[in-house]
């Protein structure tokens, strides 16, 4: 797959923000339960994160699915690495793996 221009924008976003989540809606007003679930998991851990609303940017909404070869939104990236969607992040959160993973990546969590 040749490099789509949107991929550069995505790379810049995920490099700029250590914890970045592409969601439907905003962290304050998620527009879908799965997006809300990821926002809640990160908030419960007190991790600072950037939320980008793909509903406001249709090319980005498709571009991020192609970029990660992952067909759904939300998508979580930590330190430029795709971590997963709602299922994987919920599984990681519930087992405590998400907190460990974030700390190992040097992300500050509220105690």
């Amino acid at each position, binding site marked *: 797959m040749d490099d789509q221009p949107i991929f550069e924008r995505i790379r810049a976003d995920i490099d700029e923000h250590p914890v970045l989540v592409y969601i439907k809606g905003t962290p304050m007003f998620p527009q879908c339960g*799965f997006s809300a679930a990821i926002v809640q998991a990160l908030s419960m851990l007190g991790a600072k994160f950037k939320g980008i609303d793909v509903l406001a940017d249709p090319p980005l909404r498709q571009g991020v*699915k192609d970029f990660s*070869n*992952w*067909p*759904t939104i939300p998508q979580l990236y930590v330190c430029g690495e*795709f*971590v*997963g*969607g*709602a*299922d*994987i992040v919920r*599984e990681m959160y519930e087992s405590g793996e998400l907190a460990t993973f974030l700390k190992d990546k040097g992300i500050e969590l509220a105690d």
Partner: protein
Amino acid sequence: MAMQAHEIESLIKDALPDAQVTIDDLAGDGDHYAARVVSASFKGRSRVQQHQMIYDALRGRMGDSLHALALQTSAPDD
């Protein structure tokens, strides 16, 4: 657009013949399912890769005719 549980199961089994597949219909609307898939082909693969194998098996329907598929994947005796 929607899908039937048996369609999801047969697509997954086409791609992963050894898979044990359990599907729960979460909303009765043909759009929201949960699936538990156990297959030896997941061995040594990350969770993201395991889920991507399922999405590939669904041949583009995920996020299209199928809105939500809560996935749990594992290799046998994982």
